[in-house]
């Protein structure tokens, strides 16, 4: 048994290269734990239903909805939040392309884009669309986001 369902459980989360001991309820989502215990507020709470992608983080390099993951099941994974990409070239590309607007969805898009460029450095436009359709932008700034992602992917392919 990892959690007895009555008292909180101490687990270790590996986030952005650091290990953190956190005390969680079995029902705490990864999103709750990152935001409220580790102060990593880059992952946004929005639909909490896996529909919008605002809470996207990377688990072992793969994008996941942190609202649809329990903190307790993430303890053996290497996690990355948007705070782990602070000051990165990809962040600057999104700024340069004006792929930001209100900024609420931006962390999710950037993390998804980072995983895509890492896994598929020569991704076609079709693959880019498939990956990016996991994220919604309510400002509807999709054209600028598309250009930013294409730019990042092309740069990673050339590198």
């Amino acid at each position, binding site marked *: 048994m990892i959690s007895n*369902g*009555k008292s909180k*459980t101490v687990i270790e989360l590996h986030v952005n290269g650091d290990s953190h001991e956190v005390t969680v309820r079995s*029902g705490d989502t990864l999103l709750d734990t990152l935001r409220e215990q580790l102060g990593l507020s880059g992952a946004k709470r929005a639909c909490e239903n*896996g529909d919008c992608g605002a809470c996207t983080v990377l688990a072992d390099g793969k994008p996941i*909805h942190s609202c649809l*993951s329990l903190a307790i099941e993430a303890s053996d994974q290497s996690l990355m939040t948007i705070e782990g990409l602070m000051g990165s070239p990809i962040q600057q590309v999104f700024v340069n392309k004006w792929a930001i607007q209100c900024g609420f969805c931006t962390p999710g898009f950037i993390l998804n884009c980072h995983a895509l460029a890492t896994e598929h450095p020569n991704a076609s436009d079709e693959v880019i669309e498939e990956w990016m*359709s996991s994220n919604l932008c309510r400002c509807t700034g999709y054209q600028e986001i598309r250009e930013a992602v294409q730019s990042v992917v092309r740069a990673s392919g050339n590198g």
Partner: protein
Amino acid sequence: MIPFDFEYYKPTTAAEAGETYQHLQEQGKTVMYYNGGTEFITLARVNQITADAIIDLKGIPEVRALELQGDLLVIGCSVTLNQIAESPYFPLLAQTVKGIADHTSRNKITIGGNLGSRLAYREGVLPLLLTDCKVKVAGGRSGERVVPLTQVFEKQLNLEPGEFLLQILIDQQYLNLPFVHLKKTKHSKVDYPLVSVAALVKDKAIRMAFSGICEYPFRLGEIEEVVNNTTFARKEQLKQVVAKLPAAIVDDLQGSAGYREFVFRNVLRETIDALEWAQK
């Protein structure tokens, strides 16, 4: 956040998972097996589902298998839809699961979870119904057993209390046959299907399985007899297939029954047209 607490177990063998389930059930607890967890978290958050304990299956090595073993393709129940979509073994299954949910969600949704879903679509089962595949089931009082999929899946996954799907076993002869997968949605690519069809040709006969059109996924011999009767004109085939559907056509906000039937006929026509060369 899930508004209730539950015991969380992560066994490392199938036997341990089954024993844990039995032990907890004997204590009168509501127990659930847990794979990707997307459906559990979604429903638990809004109190549509509850559990005293969950047993996370992902610590069991067999449930993560995705490989050829002799003449069989073995797929563990905790393999994610993206892992299947990116694997080279069974292109029809890869294409079908690629149409389920969005890319990020598919990193969490598992094939076992899709087959056991409470939602009506369960599209991952469609290619499996075409292959006469078997499944390895564990956790029950009788231990592990290998049975034809159709013995435990009719409309939905019907396992004995305490049992869980361990692996799917598909004969290699089905993996690279001519196939078609079509999914039609009302608005966007990421949506539930109005109609989803998986089809393949085996021994010059088309096999077809459907989701979306009726309230459960199905494959029906009577429909395949009509589809493979080349003496019928196409229009007559479509009419007869619609007449042989096993249940009423779904009529809901996503699509009226009339609209779904229209889409279904077009999908059927497109599928047969695409595969009729392989019938000759």
